[in-house]
């Protein structure tokens, strides 16, 4: 009875008429999708790039401790550094003219010694960039997972039951989606960053990384849930579902065994795209100081740090901006590949 991806399986299961009679088991839909993804060159390049970025970020402590020998979370405003054989202050006071202004040491291109230079606090930008990437990616991915999980549950419930449940949930989606996404995120962040989130048994501290995860996940729920709801509503009229009802299966069983497997490919397609979108949102919020909070860093906070040094040390902002841009592009290309692999005809709204 169970027929994963039945509703969308448009490719012939077999290539030859004889295969229908043959005993050779056909490859499952997931396996076939994976095969198609593997043959997608741009998706593979994007995937490899992403893997490289993730690996570099995961190894941030190794870089900071073993290569750069620096603590990227401790100010080093009075420290010194050897550049081209000469010992210079990390934050150099201007000595010419009126002696106004202080400039951090610029990129040395030496991995063991302020590779990308220092920020306003005299901290190693490269090490911070890797640590910041961990947070940006973590928040992007985990908020995408939370968002997709929540949206799947709500979208399936609304689409399957219809009636007042659908009416209530759909209005809820409409209300949330009626707000400009960033405005809503900023409003929630400003409120929650002062007091933290205390909702029943859930307690999240004001400075916790979980706070941007929850906020970003919440604001994008309608974006994912609405197409899923539509898909489930279409499934409602399919014969296999009527058959399940006729056999007396419970609602929960039908949703779990019949509906969910059919919407899962869509959710999987959403995942990389939402990761990219959420990472960009996180960077934007952090850039506006309402995302990741000190002492944690993210690419957004590093861009913000670099803004005050744009004229003298543009490398900080450019490096962090490049990281955000490249990762978002990689995730989007990979996401497109996943979509093409799972459902070549699907057209999702937008992308990151």
């Amino acid at each position, binding site marked *: 009875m169970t027929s994963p991806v039945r509703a969308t399986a448009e490719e012939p299961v077999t290539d030859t008429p004889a295969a229908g009679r043959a005993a050779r088991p056909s490859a499952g839909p997931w396996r076939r999708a994976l095969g198609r993804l593997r043959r997608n060159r741009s998706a593979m390049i994007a995937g490899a790039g992403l893997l490289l970025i993730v690996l570099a970020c995961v190894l941030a402590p190794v870089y900071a401790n073993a290569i750069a020998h620096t603590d990227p979370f401790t100010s080093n405003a009075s420290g010194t550094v050897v550049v081209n054989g000469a010992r210079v202050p990390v934050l150099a006071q201007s000595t010419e003219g*009126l002696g106004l202004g202080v400039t951090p040491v610029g990129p040395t291109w030496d991995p063991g010694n302020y590779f990308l230079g220092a920020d306003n606090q005299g901290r190693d930008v490269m090490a911070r960039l890797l640590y910041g990437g961990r947070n940006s990616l973590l928040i992007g991915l985990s908020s995408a997972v939370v968002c997709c999980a929540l949206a799947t549950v709500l979208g399936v419930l609304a689409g399957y039951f219809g009636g007042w449940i659908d009416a209530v949930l759909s209005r809820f989606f409409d209300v949330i989606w009626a707000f400009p996404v960033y405005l809503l995120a900023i409003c929630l962040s400003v409120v929650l960053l002062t007091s933290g989130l205390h909702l029943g048994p859930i307690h999240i501290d004001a400075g916790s990384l979980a706070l941007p995860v929850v906020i970003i996940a919440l604001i994008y729920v309608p974006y994912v849930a609405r197409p899923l709801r539509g898909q489930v509503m279409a499934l409602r009229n399919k014969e296999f579902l009527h058959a399940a009802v006729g056999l007396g299966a419970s609602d929960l069983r039908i949703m779990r065994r019949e509906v969910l497997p059919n919407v899962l490919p869509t959710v999987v397609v959403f995942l990389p795209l939402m990761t990219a979108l959420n990472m960009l949102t996180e960077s934007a919020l952090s850039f506006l100081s309402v995302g990741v909070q000190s*002492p944690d860093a993210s690419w957004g906070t590093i861009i913000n740090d670099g803004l005050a040094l744009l004229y003298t040390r543009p490398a900080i902002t450019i490096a962090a901006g490049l990281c955000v841009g490249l990762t978002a592009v990689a995730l989007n290309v990979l996401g497109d590949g996943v979509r093409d692999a799972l459902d070549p005809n699907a057209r999702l709204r937008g992308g990151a």
Partner: protein
Amino acid sequence: MKRITAMATRTAGAALLAVGVAACSGGGGAATSATDGAGQPAQTTAAGFQEQHKGGTLRLLAKSGDGTLDPHINYSNGNWQIFQALYDGLVSFRKVGGKASYDIVPDLAEEMPQVSADGKTYTFKLRKDVKFATGEAVTVDDVVASFQRIFRVSGPTSGTFYSGIVGAADCVKKPAGCTLDKGVVADAAANTITINLVAADSEFLQKLALPHAVVLPKGTPDKDQGTTPIPGTGPYKVESYNPNKQMKLVRNPNFTEWSRDAQPQGYPDEIDYNYGLTPEGAVTAVQNGQADWIFDPLPADRLTEIGTTYAEQAHVNPLAAFWYIPVNVNLAPFDKPEAREALQWAFDKNALVKMFGGANVAQPACTILPPAFPGHADFCDFPQQDLAKAKELVQQSGTSGQEVSVVVSDDDVSKQIGEYVRSTLEQIGYRAKLKVISTNIHFTYIQNTKNKVQLSVSQWYADYPAASNFINVLLSCASFREGSDASINISGFCDKDVDAKIAEAMKLDQSDTAASGKLWGELDRELMKKGPIVPLFNPKQIDFVSKNVGNYQFHAQFHALLDQMWVK
């Protein structure tokens, strides 16, 4: 680098200066000395008017307008600076650069007032022939109406600076019917105004020299006039004002110079104050000669360029102000004296100065009273950072490992300083967190004890040159109000012995300024030991002007004298 304007500070000062009512200190001799860009002493006396420079348009830039045009209500740096060319009070600060700018000189009054022996009665003789921009002469009735109006519009300092006037207490309670009939008495025949005080107040003349006590025409409505200009007596009048776009000043046709010290005629024929450009854009505009002066703090990454390529166009002047950390003495861990002493040793103030723009933009502070300020004593009991000692003191206090939050506002400099403080607290043994909140609410948030703020980063700019304006306002029991947004004693420090000494110093201010100065210095030292405040640095003001500008003068109280700049 964004330096915060004194607006927030002043607003609070207003709300709380209940303390200031008691008043103190002898006026004049004070504070900062101005230097020009090349480090030479700026002009300190008003030279005669130089006719050949008269004319042209002075073009000023700011990110945005600075609120209402009503001088009895506006309490912001930007408009206070502009009001100098628009309005006059009975007395004013001398309009010159340098130390002399703290001197009080007669303005609409013919001469300095006669003060009674008990210090409670001030009698001013009004000048004749001074006219408002409308052409009407200034009369004693206008003066009385203006004092009434301070209370009728519930001016921000009505309950503090001017609450010592007889009848002011009733006026604060019932602003609408305020008459001050026993407090401000006019004698039209003798052309005199007599102001009666409840108690002697040696700071009273300085308070009268602030824009909140300027004289306006008696028919001025008793409500905030917002963007509608009120006619004044200064050399300029506002022709138009749109806080999002532009303020345009033109010459007041009814102005004739009566005192070069108090209200000199200005040089430009027109002053255009344009709003909307970011500080980055404004710097470029001044570099290109498209504008003449910028109000906003200069961006940090342009300072080096300004200090080198454009050094001749930059003017750096010390301010009577400090950045400091108010330490909450009533909350753990800083209720322990050892923990507070640890803080005094913990920070490298040179590092903090670097975050503000370097050694030529600020200087590390060892004392509460800024250098060259009345009562300043030259001592430095915590001369340099000693992390080992700080860590040891934290351990001695038994507070090691406790959680500490540092609350800072969301401007660039505050965030950087907050991050440095957080990082240092971690190094001396605390688990430190940084809490960044909007600049709009930060100043009131850190004052309210309900918010349980352990440490924060704040600034204090002197309202006028008196030691009490720092020590009495920031650290006396009277300025600590639990649960109030207006509790400028952010540390919650209340020490009866210190309070008694403050009272003694304020009393001495009226009779023996040398002795009071010494006492203030001792108090400063004692307070540094008790540690309710960690002074960080004393900032300087950088003014960046175009090549066209001449005759730049830095007034210690109101900063650059805009109408005294010439562009021709």
